[in-house]
């Protein structure tokens, strides 16, 4: 924490090395947020890089009393929401990555476990994709970044009750979709069985 404050102060005074330290420290949460929001590694990389660059340019305006990761995640979330909104209005969308898949890592200690993990990740992405961009950001901040409702409200420029209601709505929507998917896959997996009356 003291290191972080020192790096921020040095970066505010023009030290690129100090800012690089901050990038090194926060690359994972920022990239993960962008990946969960955009659902594509290339787009996530670009959005994460852009987030850090925006933070670098606006570092003089950062208030040291505020949490730095929350400020950074706020920039990332707004950037991704804007991107998703723009995608909505373009005829050709790079979001249509249905054919994008990852091959299981054969060198992983337990390939079966690795395949299962990837399956779960893919399911997770499909579920998240069904949410509205702001709801998606709220869910990612809550579950992956362990942000409190107050921090989410600050990051997304919302009120705390609005965050609460968005999280509830998102979880209900995800549960509904999950319920439908599991019922559907159970029916698909037993084609030889007679339907239950």
């Amino acid at each position, binding site marked *: 924490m003291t290191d972080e404050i020192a790096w921020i102060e040095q970066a505010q005074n023009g030290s*690129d090395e100090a800012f*690089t330290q901050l*990038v*090194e420290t926060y*690359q*994972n*949460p920022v*990239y*993960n947020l962008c*990946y*969960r929001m955009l659902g594509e*590694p290339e787009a*996530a*990389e670009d959005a*994460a*890089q852009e987030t*850090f*660059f925006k933070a*670098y340019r606006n570092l003089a*305006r950062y208030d040291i009393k505020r949490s730095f990761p929350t*400020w950074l995640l*706020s*920039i990332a979330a*707004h950037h991704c929401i804007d991107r998703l909104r723009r995608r909505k209005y373009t005829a050709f969308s790079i979001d249509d990555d249905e054919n994008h898949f990852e091959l299981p890592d054969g060198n992983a200690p337990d390939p079966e476990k690795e395949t299962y*993990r990837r399956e*779960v*990740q893919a*399911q*997770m992405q499909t*579920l998240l994709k069904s949410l509205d961009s702001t709801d998606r950001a709220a*869910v990612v901040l809550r*579950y*992956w970044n362990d942000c409190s409702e107050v921090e989410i409200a600050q*990051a997304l*420029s919302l009120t705390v009750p609005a965050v609460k209601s968005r*999280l*509830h709505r998102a*979880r*209900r929507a*995800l*549960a*509904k979709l*999950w*319920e439908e998917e*599991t019922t559907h896959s159970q029916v698909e997996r037993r084609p030889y069985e007679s339907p239950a009356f």
Partner: protein
Amino acid sequence: MNHRPFEDWLLENQPLTPEQNQELKAHLKTCTTCKALTEVDLLLRSSQMVAPRAGFTQRFQLRMAAEKQLLRKRQLWGIALLGLITVLSIGVLAVQLVTFWLNSPAEIFVTWVTWWVTLVSSIRTLGTVGLVLLRIAAGIIPLPLWLGMAGGSFLLVLVWVSSLWKLSYSTSIRRLA
């Protein structure tokens, strides 16, 4: 007990008493909605963070260097453009001054008065034309239509001002974030 309190417990993540826990477990056996809610919550909690490809920081440094170079180039172009504008302005001013000193005071006075007379007469002509057109329109267009048009214009201005205010407000909030 009906479904609602169980859903609230799950959504609020409230700490439950052992009795409430038992009740919830029993409810989950029969309610598919609450079961799905619990499963999704577990799925979300067990999901891992995705890390970028190795060398993210190095790629950022390269990008930062490229952006800085671009910024420097832009600054140089800006300075060059500003210099050109300054030189041109000084040139125009110098030509004006030279012309001014070469002419006699009487000629300068006549030019000045002519310019003002032309300006004032143009404004007056435009005013007269406007008034004539307004009188013609007043005769043709009935009063309720006039009132409707005035009301509509007022509404349009109101919508324009409020959307401008909203836009500037949301931009300032985003800038602060």
